[in-house]
Structures are given as C-alpha cells and as structure tokens.
C-alpha cells in the first residue's frame, strides 16, 4: 500500500530522526514530498509512505507514541475557482464525487470534505484549476 499523510511535529520532537526509524524498524519506504519547520520550531511534513499495511499501522502508532500528530491530507487539493472554466471534465474522473456538476445549472462544485487526494483531477483538468498544496 501507498498513502500520503501530513505529519505534524510539536517543537519538542522536531530534532528526532523519524524517517530513519520508519525505514529501519518498520520496513516502510518514506518519500518526503514537502517539509518545513516554522519559527516556533513546529514541523510539518507531507510524506508518501509505502509498505505493508501492518507495517504502516505499526509505524503510525510509533510516530503517535512519540508525540507526532498524523493529519489526513484532505485540505490539500485546492480548487482554484478563477481558473476553473466550468467545463465539467473532472466530474467523471473524480472517484468520490468531490468534484461534481450541479444539475440543471451545470455549475461545477468542489466538496473538499469528500476529496481523498487521489490527484486524478490534477491531470484531467485542462485548465489546471486543481492544485496540490502541501
């Protein structure tokens, strides 16, 4: 399995080598898509983790036990409304109904709470109105 998640590190833990443990002790592949530490020494990283489901669960539990918060990636796909031409092409590509055409107006709407960040729409949208923000 492969999954993207957001890790939030409180200031007390930002110095610890979590990726190292995830790889070494839990057999997980960790791909860091984005990472930053703010002036308050809080860290945020978007990572793609792949490996066995059980290893993944154990790895997550390990991170949580060390005070790392795991956030879902839900808010990360952004619909740039002014770039959207309201064509509707994304509606058949989006697997969850997060991007839908309202009928009869034919207006396109984005329901971010339904988005599972599969990123299919990033490719399918001709005007590049869908963006991934990490």
């Amino acid at each position: 399995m492969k999954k993207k998640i957001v890790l939030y590190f409180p200031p007390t833990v930002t110095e610890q080598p979590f990726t190292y443990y995830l790889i070494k002790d839990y057999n997980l592949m960790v791909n860091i898509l984005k990472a930053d530490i703010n002036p308050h020494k809080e860290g945020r990283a978007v990572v793609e983790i792949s490996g066995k489901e059980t290893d993944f669960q154990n790895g997550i539990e390990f991170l949580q036990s060390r005070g790392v918060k795991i956030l879902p990636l839900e808010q990360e796909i952004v619909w740039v409304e002014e770039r959207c031409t309201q064509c509707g092409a994304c509606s058949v590509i989006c697997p969850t109904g997060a991007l839908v055409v309202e009928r009869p107006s034919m207006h396109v709407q984005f329901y971010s709470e339904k988005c599972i960040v599969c990123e299919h729409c990033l490719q399918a949208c001709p005007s590049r109105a869908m963006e991934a923000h990490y």
Partner: protein
Amino acid sequence: MSKKTYEEINARIRAGEAVVVTAEEVIPMVREQGLEETAAAVDVVTTATFGPMCSSGAFLCLGHPQPRMKMTRVFLNGVEACAGLAAVDAYLGATQLPQADPGNKMYPGEFRYGGGHVIEDLVAGKEIFLEAEGYGTDCYPRKQLQKTIRLADMPQATLYNPRNAYQNYNVGVNLSAKTIYTYMGILKPRLGNANYSTAGQLSPLLNDPCYRTIGMGTKIFLGGGVGYVSWFGTQHAPEAPRGENGVPTTSAGTLAVVGDLKQMTPRWLRGVSFMGYGASLMVGIGIPLPILDVETLRYAAVSDAEIFAPIVDYSEAYPQGRGETLGQVSYAQLKSGEITIGDRVVPTASFSSYPGAREIAGILKEWIQSGKFLLTKPVFTLPQSLTGIDYRSLV
C-alpha cells in the same frame, strides 16, 4: 408575422428597444407562446460556446528593433511562432509546444505550456520573453534579438482562428482495456466515461443549422472582444447527415473567425493542456442571430433533446479512421450526467463549458440591449454545399 430586416432590427437596437434573448431563454418562450408570437416579439437570439478550439492562433506584429531585423525564427516564452511572413510578423499557433517539451516520451505527456498559454499570458498583459533569429540583410541587418515584450508593445495583434465553433461533435468513449489520452480527454477503459464537447442548445451553428444568417462578416463576441466571422472554417462539411429539423448529426459546419487580440481577455481565451495529447486554447465565442422570420426562430429555438451526436470509440475506430459509431445520443441525455450504451450506463462529462457559454450569451445580449453592438449582414452566408460553392448573399 411579416419579415424583419437587418436595418429594422438595428434601428430598434439603436433606439434601445430591441428584444434580445439567449438561445436558452427562447426555448420556453416558444413553448409557451408559440413560434409566430415569439418571432414577432423577439429581435435577436444570442448563442455562444466556450470550449477548446485547437485551430486557433494569433498574427503578431512584433515591431522592429533597432537596428531593424528580418526574423526567420521567433520564440515567445520558448514556444515557436511561424515567422515565414514579413520581417517582424509571426503566427503563433495554439497547439505549438516549447522546443524542449518531451511530448509523449514520458507517456502520457502533461503539455503544461503551449501556444494557447502564451496567448492567454499576452491578453493577461504579462511580459513574454521574445527570442528571434535572422540571417541579416542589407536593409534588415540585425541577426539576434532577446527581450521581454507585452501585448501593448506590439503594433498589431490579431486573433485569427481557421477553425472554431464546430457545429456538432463526437461523443468520445473507449472500448479498450486501457485508459487512453485523447483530445476528448482521459477516456477510461471499457466505456468508463463518455466525453462530449459542444454547448448544445446554446451553440451558434446548432441554432442556425442551415446557415441562413451566419456568414462572412457576421459580427461576433470573440474572446471577450468584438470579432467577425471571416470565412467558413477548415473541414467545413455542410453535406453531413441531418435530422428532419436540419440539425446535423455529425460534426458538419465550422467557422473561421478574426478579431483584435488587444480587446480580448484571459477570461475568454484560456490556455489548456490535454494530458497525453497536447496544448490548446479555450475560446469564447458569441454569435447573435437576427430573427428575420419564423423560420429563423424555429431553428434558434432548438433544444438539447432535439440535437444528436454520434458516439465514437477513440481506442480503435477513430484512430484507424473507420467511420463506425456506437449510436446516437441527444444533448439532453448527455447533460443528464449519464447515457446508456448497449446495456451499460456510462457517466458523461463535457469539455465545452456550458456555464461559460451561458455567460457569453448573456454578455452579448447586454451589449446589444445597451445599443453598442449592432448586427451586420454577412457578405455571403456559410456555404451549404462544397461542390460549386455559391457565395449566396442575403436578400
């Protein structure tokens, strides 16, 4: 009802008395009041479309540098424009890609930037990096040029699209077992989706299916500014099969259009990228139809349920150039969100923006109502036949 002339309609527009409705609004009017009464009441019906139109581009006059230059190659933000014209003129095509674009080498390619995007950036007023080469002549000695340029710096810039506003179009599906990437978008395997691309009941040539009023010189909304129909478009195929209502059941007619790029806006000229296919330009076009008689209105009152498009397999039949179709489907069905092909229910999606088309039809309606946009009588209407083209002028 007695017939109306262009002059009479324009007089009413000038006086601010013209009754203008969109091609969507006119449908319930005709249903409720009948053709005769509506034809007497309505002067103009506005139609529109906003969709990807690959056969688009702009003639750019880049202005002479000092010393002067005969440009033989021109690049705008890395996208080559055809410079086989006079010294500093070039034609930038909407589907042109930067030289470094990998195309489909990393299949499917992304085509994030192309000629259509340069055109969008130009009308957005952005600075564009211009690179030009020449071999140098006695009168035009300069051989190299690199500078930034804006649309406002160019002496002239003319959008000239050789084929726009396709009258009707295929519904693309995929019968194969793998996802395919086409100009009809991403088509999922085994009839995973069906993509279509016209505005149906709002679309210009579907409301004047036999070309009674649209022709060379028809004044239109183009990319947010004012433009004109300049000719019939490439691949204009008026002899296509038609239903009893005159509406073609395959692609059929096309338009060539022209207008001053400097009047246009990025809202209605939009660079787009088709995964695995290429770059293009979405163009907004609005065309007014004068209601000269009951017949013009009958055509303009066409609704989605009366317009049919062919379902075509883009995995095999289309690329191999076989004319097979999987049947016909109405735009009312397409817009419902799903169609039935055989025993399969297939979700549908559009590439042409129906809300965009509705907005353009509304803007054009406002322009006409406010008295600032008069109708023009075409020099000749679009040919109804390609054999022995007769450049009919309107009586």
